[in-house]
């Protein structure tokens, strides 16, 4: 029992109250961006919205590596929010500060050094892609893709399963050489209804994309892609992870990590995807899109 008249007890009680956490929000966080580009900025905005913390931003490719490290150490943050693959790679040099990433292609492909990092990847499951393709192109029966088994083996397996589940065929061509891609693309002439561009570094390069798009125009085969930029270049449609929402997700993860402080690694894939359509390309390919689909899609034309 505390004696209410004992002044010492009253002071001790006051100090105890001051020492208790007043909310579930985190302290200062450093947002380390690989570059100062729009999707990354959107991710940071989402992060700031959800983490309810002070965020100071550092752009990695505008500052020398040693300076970045000094800045981060000077800030002594509770966590680092790494936006982009380069930022995540750099964050492993910081030391014992929790790292939460975002805008990273695929969590499953992270290196051993990055295994302790929590965060949200841009990975969209094959099921979602297949569902979106069928939503935009409901008459598609054969979906073609080219992949390198080293990078996209599991994705293609899952895609094949998803296709089978929906009663359609996946025409997948395997390669390990970028030089073979034009030939493989040409080999799909007349065999597919839609081409699914998968985020595979062996397959995707500027020339292969140009070739694929030319193939698409010549053979009236729409290309469904994983990034808005290819829709703007000439793909018919695409599905990509919403950066702002990924930032929100990352903010929530930071809150959990900071508040629980149990060293648990929390990883997730982007929960929200955005369907993007190039109407001009659709028109050129002679494809009509249902109104309800158009209503909920973004346009990149």
């Amino acid at each position, binding site marked *: 029992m505390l004696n209410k008249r004992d002044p010492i007890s009253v002071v001790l009680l006051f100090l105890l109250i001051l020492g208790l956490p007043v909310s579930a929000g985190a302290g200062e966080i450093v947002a380390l961006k690989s570059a100062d580009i729009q*999707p990354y900025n959107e991710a940071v905005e989402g992060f700031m919205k959800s983490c309810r913390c002070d965020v100071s931003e550092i752009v990695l490719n505008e500052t020398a590596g040693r300076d970045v490290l000094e800045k981060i150490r000077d800030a002594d943050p509770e966590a680092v929010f790494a936006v982009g693959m380069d930022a995540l790679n750099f964050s492993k040099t910081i030391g014992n500060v929790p790292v939460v990433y975002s805008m990273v292609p695929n969590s499953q492909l992270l290196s051993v050094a990055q295994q302790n990092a929590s965060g949200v990847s841009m990975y969209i499951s094959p099921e979602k892609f297949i569902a979106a393709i069928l939503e935009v192109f409901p008459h598609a029966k054969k979906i073609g893709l080219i992949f390198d088994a080293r990078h996209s083996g599991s994705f293609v397996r899952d895609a094949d399963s998803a296709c089978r589940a929906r009663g359609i065929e996946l025409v997948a061509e395997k390669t390990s050489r970028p030089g073979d891609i034009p030939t493989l693309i040409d080999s799909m002439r007349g065999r597919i209804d839609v081409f699914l561009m998968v985020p595979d*570094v062996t397959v995707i390069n500027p*020339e292969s994309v140009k070739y694929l798009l*030319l193939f698409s125009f010549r053979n009236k085969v729409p290309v469904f892609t994983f990034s808005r930029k290819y829709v703007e270049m000439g793909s018919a449609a695409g599905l990509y992870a919403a950066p702002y929402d990924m930032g929100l997700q990352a903010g929530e993860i930071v809150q959990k990590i900071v508040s629980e402080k149990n060293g648990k690694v929390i990883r997730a894939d982007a929960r929200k995807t955005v369907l993007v359509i190039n109407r001009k390309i659709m028109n050129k390919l002679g494809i009509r899109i249902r109104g309800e689909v158009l209503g909920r899609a973004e346009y990149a034309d």
Partner: protein
Amino acid sequence: MPTKSFRKSFGFKVFRSFALSILVVAIVLSALLVYYQNSMVKKDLYKEGTMLADMLAYSIRTWVFAENKDMLKDAVQGVMGQKNVVAVVVYNADRQVLIIEKKQSADKKDPFGNDPAAAGKMRMEQAGIIPKTAEREGTIGFLSPVVLETYKNMEEAIYFEESPKQSVQHVIGYVEVVLDKGVLRTEMRSILIRNAVATLLFLLAGSVAIYIAVRRLMRPLTNLAASVRSLGRGETVAQVPVESMDEIGRLATDFNTMSDNLKKREAEKELLEEKLRYAQKMEAVGTLARGIAHDFNNILATLRGSIYLIDKKLPAHDELRQYTRQVHGSIARAQNLIRGLLTFSRTQRINFRPADLGGIIRRLQPMLTNMAGEGVHLKVSLPEGPVMAMSDSVQLEQILMNLCANGRDAMPDGGVLSISVEMVTVGSEAGRQYPPAPGRYAVMSVRDTGPGMDEKTRERIFEPYFTTKDVGKGTGLGLAIVYGIVKQHRGWIWVESEKGEGTIFRVYLPLLEKNEEDMENKSR
């Protein structure tokens, strides 16, 4: 064609030197220009080849990547349409020919030989690295790599338009654009012709300009040379026009000065020659007079002796005595004439003593006044001190008497007869028109205000028996006697007279200075 004399002239040498200089400058400039233009043409060809190869390499990246020969052929044929392109070869990354296009032309060599693929491959392998150009006989091949651009971190880069990553370039093939070097030869020929014509025109225009300039420059010199030649031939030379103040102008000025001096010297020489001739004439006349006088004197002596003897034999009151008296009188007049002639011919014995000219005049002044008569006013102007000369005072009196009588006779209607004595220093100044020789002189002048003499009279007044007086009024020996006495005194007599201006006679006698006078007196 220049004349032979022009080819030998200084102007032609100047013209030739300048023309040669222009020729050398024109050739050097032309050579530099040809070299520069040739470099420019070659540079342009290289630029064109490099640009075509680079453009083709850039535009066919996709088709090289895809090794799509149909599409490659379309692109390559576009380049083949260019003017100087004779062949295009596209290789893959392994340097194997993907496509080769070439113009089949009979007059052009196949730039690749029989096996273009092998030739191209061999060239690149031999080089180790890919050369930018491959120069062959008749053609130049321009090589450019076909580059595929990827990113360092492909995983991330494939997602976004604005790539945050550094790009990485992979060579996926090569392009060789082969240009015909014939254009170089054609251009070179054209450049050579243009430059040769330009050089010729430059040389022609320069030569004409220099010829005109040299002619203009040489004109004063030519005039001067002509004047010098005329002067050399002894012709009368007019003043050379002085057109400038440069060396040639100064030369013309100096030539004019020299010409003037020569003219003065010539005039002086002519005067001296005239005087010499006159002196020689007077000498000859004197010699003649002297001879006649001697012989005649001897005859007169015989006549006088004979008449004396006749006179002795005749009775005192003989009628014939009147004839002997007439003969005596005639002999006496003849002897007077003989004395005059002897005085003129300077055979009279002279008794030289220091004599004061002023003193002699003062002594004779009353007699001279009487002699002048009433109509003539005698004006005597003498210095205060003595003016001494080694002379025979009797002879000097004779001079004075003769000159004054001459002056008086020249003024029948009256006038002024002025007599003066002065000391004069004759210098060696240039341009002096007459003797005496430089030195100090005692000068006695007699001037009348008569009608004066013309030049013709003036030239003969010292000749014996020359007179302008009426017959019987003068013997014609007065001035001849004066001339003879002056010459015997080693002096000079000078007459100045113009018609209507009167006449002045100046008698120059060597001045006897004080110390000379003292020495002379001591020696006596």
